[in-house]
């Protein structure tokens, strides 16, 4: 089974020019640790809705390939979003879910219905044909490469973190909301030749 480190390392190595939007907690912190990317967007807020942010970008900007890096805990908070995603079916969008059956930033506190929920099956039954589950780095890399051919939903089974007790650790990302907004928005402007901010910067 994948570890958290091998999961993010595989995504980093497969990543080329995709626009990456990260869910909060382990996902955002680990992507930052793996890439130090300021051209990605970190939704350290609104648990469950990073995938909606990513979907909004994909729907409006067909020339961008967009990856939503999500987790099972976040997905469980926006499970209905799978229906929205399935209905819209943007060909430039991949929803990638870290399934570790627990809340990483809560020291492995268990997720509801842990180990029984098949998120890829839910996505397939909602109409996303290219919904797959993977267990290894090779299969994850292959699924990510395949995702470049159309709308995809990839669930990676990752080892659960050790169970413990404690308060949430501080964020790894040294940037707060407005700075993340401007860094990502300026990247979108230069990358795609669009105007996110007006002449006075708002």
């Amino acid at each position, binding site marked *: 089974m994948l570890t958290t480190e091998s999961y993010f390392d595989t995504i980093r190595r497969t990543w080329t020019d995709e626009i990456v939007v990260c869910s909060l907690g382990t996902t955002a912190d680990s992507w930052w640790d793996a890439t130090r990317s300021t051209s990605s967007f970190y939704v350290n807020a609104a648990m469950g809705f990073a995938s*909606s942010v990513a979907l*909004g970008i994909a*729907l409006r900007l067909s020339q961008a390939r967009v990856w939503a890096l999500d987790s099972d805990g976040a997905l469980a908070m926006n499970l209905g979003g799978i229906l*929205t995603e399935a*209905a819209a079916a943007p060909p430039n969008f991949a929803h990638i879910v870290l399934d570790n059956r627990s809340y990483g930033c809560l020291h492995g506190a268990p997720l509801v219905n842990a180990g029984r929920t098949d998120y890829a099956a839910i996505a397939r039954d909602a109409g996303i044909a290219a919904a797959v589950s993977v267990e290894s780095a090779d299969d994850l890399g292959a699924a990510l490469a395949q995702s470049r051919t159309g709308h995809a939903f990839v669930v990676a089974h990752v080892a659960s973190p050790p169970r413990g007790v404690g308060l949430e650790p501080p964020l790894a990302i040294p940037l707060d*909301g407005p700075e993340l907004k401007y860094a990502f928005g300026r990247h*979108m402007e230069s990358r795609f030749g669009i105007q996110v901010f007006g002449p006075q910067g*708002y």
Partner: protein
Amino acid sequence: MLEYPSVDLSLFERIADELAAARIGFAAMLPDDWTSPLCTVLDRAPEFRAIRVAREPEIIGLCTGCFFTGSLGLGVLGATGFLACASEIATLTRRYQIPMVLVVSKRGTLDDHQVFQEVQGRTARPMADLLGLPSLDLDSPESLAGIGDLANASRLQKRPGIAWLTKALIVQSPTAVAS
């Protein structure tokens, strides 16, 4: 068998025109009965990419993504759905300073006789004020001209702006929404 009155769509087409004039071209929608005709219009309007969502907080995420593509996003939702978005508006749009326009039904007012909307009448507007959101009452045909200013205020203040869809406006349609 209950009969539901039809609605004159011309009023909602005017709202869509004002939204388009404000350079809004994307709409994420989960309507109640007051906002449903607007969704019908937006579904048909070539100026808009309109999608339906399963639950209202998705609208806040989708419109945030839309902002990063160079356009204000539009959310269309009922007052109950707006209440469901408190966390996402606070932690996403306010923390990250993201503008968008939300057309929300102003339910639970004295002229709204649906008992299941009365709590929304006492809570939705105060919640918007608590979140510091600029807003505009759409209560007459003339008021629709303020949509552009609301969109601009949303950008200037870097937060969602709310256009409250009132019954006073809707009943000006020849065949209005039932009360």
